[in-house]
């Protein structure tokens, strides 16, 4: 029978399946961080259980870490306890940890690929919804809750039910200045934040194949914003080349064996999908979000919606609520939205290619005098690479602050946050109410668009700044 890539990975990880379809799935890779793991380790300790495979587990502190001078440690007492707890738990249970002073430290979804811990055909989980990022390598990667983290630590398996197959085909080529961030925002706008609920998404089509490994990660990363727990892309030569020689990639004979298996990972030509949609890349424009849900997207040459044009009462209320929170008026032009802050970073757009894209726009330019802007590299290695390329100087010369790696203002658990009513052009993934700080207003954009907004002081069209 013809099967999809998701079906194949699923079948290759089935430890057990009950008659009602409930399955026990083997987990090849488990990433953990300080926020969603303490209660899981506590549970193990209370039941006198061990971590079944410490060497299939990798830990890093990312959500709470400061992005300014780290020699002073963490000043917030609760954040410090959480990071210290991760450290002591890793020591007690024998799990490898990249500590705050390790240059490999960074956002969990950036370090996995960087180290070669993320591999095609694996089941990867983490107590974080953006685990979908790793699907870019042709793995089945999804976020889990803390009880499930404990379950994986204890058993190296997870209780799951099979999801539906949903294929999103993107064909064509992207216009100048349009990026994979715009593609995924367009997709979420089209399917809605619940559009992928109960599904695993496979991204396909010639545009997807033409994307770099990092651009693919941006797309898979935000799959969860469309409601699907996992999004994946069939692995190809670009993926194999990326992984070759990474510290945790297979070596020698194992590399050859792995490669042979990885090359077999693709959807059969006549496999059927429960759901399928098509997008034309040529028609995608630079996108922004105007509201408080990632599905609230418009193009940069568009206008903020008017609730009066909406007939559905629930949708109308929802638009009114979002406009009020965001402090916007109906029908105003996207480019008339004045911003206070710019954040470049996160597991969505904190990799080296993202920083290059923003730096290209910022070179020899100054940011607007009323804008505060920060760049938070996704990992210590991204930071190091950027500094070798001189990107840090471009950012600093233009008026950006150059920070230490972490999740930072994507969710504002550390000191980086918006004040009430402050407005931010952000390369992160969620524009929920209060996400970047109580009362803070978030507009999701690509790194190039964030750079353009920083220069102009308003949300602006990145295409004006392309040479």
């Amino acid at each position, binding site marked *: 029978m013809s099967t999809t890539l998701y079906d194949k990975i699923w079948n290759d990880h089935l430890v057990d399946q009950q008659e009602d379809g409930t399955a026990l799935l083997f987990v090849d890779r488990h990433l953990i961080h300080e926020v969603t793991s303490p209660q899981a380790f506590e549970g193990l300790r209370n039941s006198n259980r061990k971590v079944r495979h410490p060497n299939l587990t990798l830990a890093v502190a990312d959500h709470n870490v400061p992005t300014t001078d780290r020699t002073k440690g963490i000043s917030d007492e609760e954040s410090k306890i959480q990071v210290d707890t991760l450290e002591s738990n890793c020591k007690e249970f024998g799990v490898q940890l990249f500590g705050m002073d390790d240059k490999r430290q960074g956002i969990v979804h950036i370090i996995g690929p960087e180290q070669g811990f993320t591999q095609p055909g694996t089941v990867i989980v983490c107590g974080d919804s953006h685990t979908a990022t790793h699907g870019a390598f042709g793995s089945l990667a999804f976020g889990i809750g*803390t009880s499930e983290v404990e379950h994986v630590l204890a058993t190296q398996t997870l209780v799951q039910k099979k999801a539906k197959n949903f294929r999103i085909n993107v064909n064509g080529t992207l216009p100048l200045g349009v990026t994979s961030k715009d593609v995924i925002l367009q997709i979420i706008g089209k399917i809605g934040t619940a559009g992928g*609920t109960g599904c695993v998404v496979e991204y396909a089509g010639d545009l997807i194949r033409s994307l770099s490994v990092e651009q693919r990660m941006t797309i898979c990363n935000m799959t969860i914003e469309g409601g699907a727990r996992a999004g994946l892309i069939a692995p190809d030569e670009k993926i194999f080349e990326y992984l070759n020689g990474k510290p945790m990639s297979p070596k020698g004979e194992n590399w050859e064996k792995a490669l042979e298996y990885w090359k077999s990972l693709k959807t059969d030509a006549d496999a059927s999908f429960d759901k399928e949609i098509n997008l034309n890349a040529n028609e995608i424009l630079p996108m922004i979000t105007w509201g408080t*849900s990632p599905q609230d997207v418009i193009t940069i040459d568009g206008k903020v919606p008017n609730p009066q044009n909406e007939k559905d009462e629930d949708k109308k209320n929802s638009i009114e609520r979002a406009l009020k929170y965001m402090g916007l008026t109906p029908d105003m032009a996207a480019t008339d939205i004045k911003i206070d802050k710019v954040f470049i970073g996160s597991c969505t757009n904190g990799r080296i290619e993202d920083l290059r894209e923003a730096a290209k726009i910022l070179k020899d330019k100054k940011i607007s005098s009323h804008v505060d802007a920060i760049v938070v590299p996704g990992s210590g290695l991204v930071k190091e690479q950027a500094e070798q390329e001189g990107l840090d100087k471009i950012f600093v010369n233009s008026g950006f602050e150059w920070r230490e790696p972490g999740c930072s203002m994507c969710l504002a658990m550390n000191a980086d946050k918006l004040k009430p009513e402050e407005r931010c052009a952000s390369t992160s993934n969620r524009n929920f109410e209060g996400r970047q700080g109580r009362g803070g207003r978030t507009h999701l954009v690509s790194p190039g668009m964030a750079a353009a907004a920083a220069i102009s002081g308003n949300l602006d069209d990145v295409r004006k700044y392309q040479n």
Partner: protein
Amino acid sequence: MQKFNTLKSIPAYLPIVNIDTDMIIPKQFLKTIKRTGLGKNLFFEMRYDDNGKEINDFVLNQEPFNNSKILIAGNNFGCGSSREHAPWALLDFGITCVISSSYADIFYSNCFKNGILPIILEEEKIKELSEYANRKEEIAVDLNDQKIIYGNNEIKFEIDPFKKKCLLEGLDDIALSLKKSDKIQNFENQLKDKRPWVFND
């Protein structure tokens, strides 16, 4: 885990769609290393003003809804982050049953790990039930018979049989899976032959 069997309560109605887990429990409360004590911060931003005072308009600040065990809400409830702090906060507040027309996948599965029953009903039925919240009348939930009883009416709801069993009996997932240790061991032995690189050896 606390067993779930039957439940009777005046439901609280929150007519907002896409309630995300950041709304249910904002990030400043994720710094805890415990599962308990989050109830007072449930829906924090909607529930308290800038000075930390309760906002009277918010439903869970009003009698009798501050004691509701059932929450009725708009579709796509629990979207966003995977934080299990969201069901922990609901549970700590006293809510053990949520009724919506749809849930985000991770939140949905997190509920079952904590003895919370998330019921899926059609929008139409939700509107009907919300009237009971408006009139401050009790409704009853019976998990075994998979029905909600309100006034002289009943609505049946669907639920995965295995999840139902775990809730009814308060079963510990990990203990159940560890009973399959032999199967896990077999799988791992085969994996070492088929895909040896997975083990990082």
